[in-house]
Structures are given as structure tokens and as C-alpha cells.
């Protein structure tokens, strides 16, 4: 077997860039779309921003299998919880459940998560759940292999008083920078914006991702007759 053949036997993992940032009234979550098995891109249009409830989403990084299945469990727990509560679950609760799953199974999982969303009590909120299974509430957070390249950028660009449009622009800029420098991140950019008005999804195709770090712009697409 050659190199690529062995790659296909490797577990599927998401060398990833994910992030979430809060603005006045909600949150914006962003992610690249690359999933790889070794050096082979298994999926170039992956959706790494998965719904947990109608207004709470989770950004997944690490093993695709681990994070997909963990998310399924959290979805199940939240559904049962909201039935007992007779109300929508809070972001805090979703984050706590994800954290518990991540922490209690830390030896069997490879999962870096960001839980964010909107609820009536706290408004928009962002929670980071890094590899060990800690739970941190932050105004914004970045994760995945690509995040290493954009700490400085995000620290400089993030402001607490951003509008929804500013926040969206910030997320797209940060993710496109990470995709430009991180080999394991790439493809398209997906964003999810959550506020009291509901959920908006945005998709930026690979050839429309903003030029970030001096690479050549994508060639203009031939117009079809």
C-alpha cells in the first residue's frame, strides 16, 4: 500500500478552523469546510456547525466521529431536558452537557468544541470547551489547528461593541486568514448567526473566500453562455 492508501485507513479528523464571537444581541459562529483522512480531503464542503437546539449550535473540531456522536448525545439530552422544563433549553445548559460528555470521556475522545447560541435569559453567549473538557464562557473564542495562526489577529480585531454585520465580517476575515496559513483548513467558509430574531446561515464558496495572506486571487469564472 502506498501513502494515500494508508491514509484512508486513518480515522477521519477535522484539521479545522472554528470560532464564535458575540455581538450586541447575538453570536456569530464560523468554520472552514475541510475534513481529512491523513493527506486526503474526505469532504471539502463539510458542515462543522451543528444544531443542538433551534437556537443553540456547536462548532466541532478534532475527530469527526467523536464530535458527531457527542453532538447526537447532547441533542438527545437537551430534547429530554426541554420537555421536563416545558421551555427551550439555555445555552449554558447545552454547554454544560457538552462539557460533561467531553470531560467524563476525555480518554476516549478527541474533541475541541465551541457551544454558542441565544436564549431569553442571557441573550447571546459563547462557551469554549477545549480538549481536556473545561468550560469557559468568553466573549469570543477560536479553535482547531487553524486557530494558532490567528490569535494575534483576533485579539487585535475583536471589539465588545460590534454590530451584527461587523461581527460577521470579523469572523469571515479571521477564518479566511487561518485557511490561508493552515494546510489542514480550507475549502469554503460557513457562518451561523444567532440572535433573538432566529438563525441565519451564510455560505462562502471556496473561490469567493477573501484573499487573506498574499496568495493569488481565484481566476474569474468563465461566464456560461
Amino acid at each position: 500500500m502506498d501513502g494515500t492508501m494508508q491514509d484512508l485507513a486513518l480515522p477521519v479528523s477535522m484539521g479545522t478552523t472554528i470560532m464564535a464571537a458575540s455581538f450586541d444581541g447575538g453570536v456569530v459562529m464560523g468554520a472552514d469546510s475541510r475534513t481529512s483522512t491523513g493527506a486526503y480531503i474526505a469532504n471539502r464542503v463539510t458542515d462543522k456547525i451543528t444544531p443542538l437546539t433551534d437556537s443553540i449550535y456547536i462548532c466541532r473540531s478534532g475527530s469527526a466521529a467523536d464530535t458527531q456522536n457527542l453532538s447526537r448525545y447532547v441533542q438527545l439530552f437537551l430534547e429530554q431536558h426541554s420537555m421536563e422544563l416545558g421551555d427551550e433549553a439555555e445555552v449554558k445548559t447545552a454547554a454544560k452537557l457538552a462539557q460533561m460528555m467531553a470531560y467524563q470521556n476525555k480518554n476516549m475522545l478527541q474533541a475541541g468544541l465551541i457551544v454558542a447560541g441565544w436564549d431569553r435569559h442571557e441573550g447571546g453567549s459563547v462557551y469554549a470547551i477545549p480538549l481536556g473538557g473545561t468550560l469557559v464562557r468568553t466573549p469570543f473564542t477560536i479553535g482547531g489547528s487553524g486557530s494558532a495562526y490567528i490569535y494575534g489577529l483576533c485579539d487585535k480585531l475583536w471589539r465588545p461593541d460590534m454590530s451584527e454585520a461587523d461581527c460577521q465580517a470579523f469572523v469571515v476575515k479571521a477564518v479566511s486568514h487561518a485557511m490561508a496559513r493552515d494546510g489542514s483548513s480550507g475549502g469554503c467558509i460557513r457562518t451561523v448567526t444567532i440572535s433573538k430574531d432566529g438563525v441565519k446561515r451564510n455560505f462562502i464558496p471556496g473561490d469567493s473566500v477573501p484573499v487573506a495572506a498574499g496568495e493569488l486571487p481565484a481566476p474569474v469564472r468563465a461566464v456560461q453562455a
Partner: protein
Amino acid sequence: MAGASQQGGFAFDLCKRNEFFEAKGVKHPGFTKTGTTIAGIIFKDGVVLGADTRSTAGTTVADKNCEKIHYIAPNIYCCGAGTAADTENVTGMVASQLELHRYATGAQSRVVTAMTLLKGHLFKYQGHVSAALVLGGVDFRGPHLFTVYPHGSTDSLPYCTMGSGSLNAMAVFESGYKDDLTREEAMDLVARAIRSGIMNDLGSGSNVDLCIITKDGVEYLRNHEYLQAKTYERQFPQKFASGSVPVVRERIYDIKKVVTVVEGEPMDMEA
């Protein structure tokens, strides 16, 4: 090994022995894996699944015309790559669970249900069940196509490939895929993708199987492209054409001369 039976529980002596042998360079026997090319595509009215038909044991071809497109439900089929035993059994298990589910609900099976059952099972076994699958079908929500990896991750895609020949097949898809292909175009593209695996990947070979699923039904085209006929057809059990055995002697008896029929009372059937 001595004394292991006196303690109860598991004995790991043989693991140590095997490690020792392995360190000395002994190769242990492996499982039958299907070096494979499988692929699927969504077209205008449904999905087309495709597979090669080579099964290998190491570098030896174990079966030149095996079936890799497995039945899941009347509206769902699944291509399997990886360890043959695992793909056969995991698809069989899900097929039977879905059949029971249909009896209980009286409703058509959904493709996501099959996908969720598969990923749940594979995740539970942490990758030790080596089944890499392309799952396709049509339900009331329309056509669906998924890849399922041995560790339990899934992707939902308009076109996908799996197995050792997946790179060859994906190259064909990436150059030829368009949205809303016709049935014939889709069949042709999938057959071409599988053929590129058969021709260029060592693990894949022989013929092309196709399975076309639409809301109106399934067309399972076994050996759609019969590229490599068997070099030797097995002669047993021998079949004799009618008339190939000569009639040596013929005798005709008149049965009325031997048997006499006697009228009698009907049997009393009352209890």
C-alpha cells in the same frame, strides 16, 4: 501460560507471546479485506450506487465476482468497503432492524435512520468494525447519499467514493459531476468512476455493479459492465442437456391388470 487457569478471569499470556513473535518478525494472518472501489451520486430523480466486484485476501483475488452493493431496505441500498465480514454483517443487522421498524410503524424506512443506526454501531466499536460505506436511498424527503466511516463519522454529499479506489473514482466525479444529471448520464458517470478504479487500482477489479434507486423503485444491475469474464468456469455440479442420455430399454405396464379398486364406506369423521 502455566497457572493461568487457576486465577480465573482473562489470561493475557498469549498476547505477550504474540507480541514476542511479532518482535521476532512473524507475520500474523489478517482478515479478508475488499480492496474496493465504491461510489454513489445523486441525480435528478434519485441516486445511483456503483461498485466493483473484486474481493481480495492479501494480494490474492479471493472472489472475482462478489456483490458489494448490499440491501438495506426496499428503498435503500449500501455499498461496502473494508473487511468483507464486517460490511456484510453490519448492513445485514441494520437491514433487519429497519424491517422490524417498518413492521412496527407501517412507514417506509428513512435513509437517515439507516445512517444513524450504522454510525451508532460503528462508533460503539471505535473503528474495530472495519466497514467503510456509501449509503444511498430515496425516501419521502427525496434522495439521500452518505458516506459512513469505520470510526462512526458520516458525511452527506451529492457525490462520494470510498475504498482503495476512491481517489480514482473521485477524480472522475470531480471532472464530470453536474447538478440534476439524467438517469442515463448518472449511470454512465458512476460506471466510469468504478471503471477507473478497476483499471487503475490494484485492490479493485473485475466488473461494474450498479444500483439505481428512485421514488418509483430500484433497478439493481448486477454486472452492468462485464469487463472480465471468469477465466475458468467451474464444471460441478454437471448439468446434462435433455436427451444427452440414450434410452436403452422401455417397458409399459397396464396398471389396471395389477391393481383392483374396491368400493367402501366413507370414514366416520365425527368426533
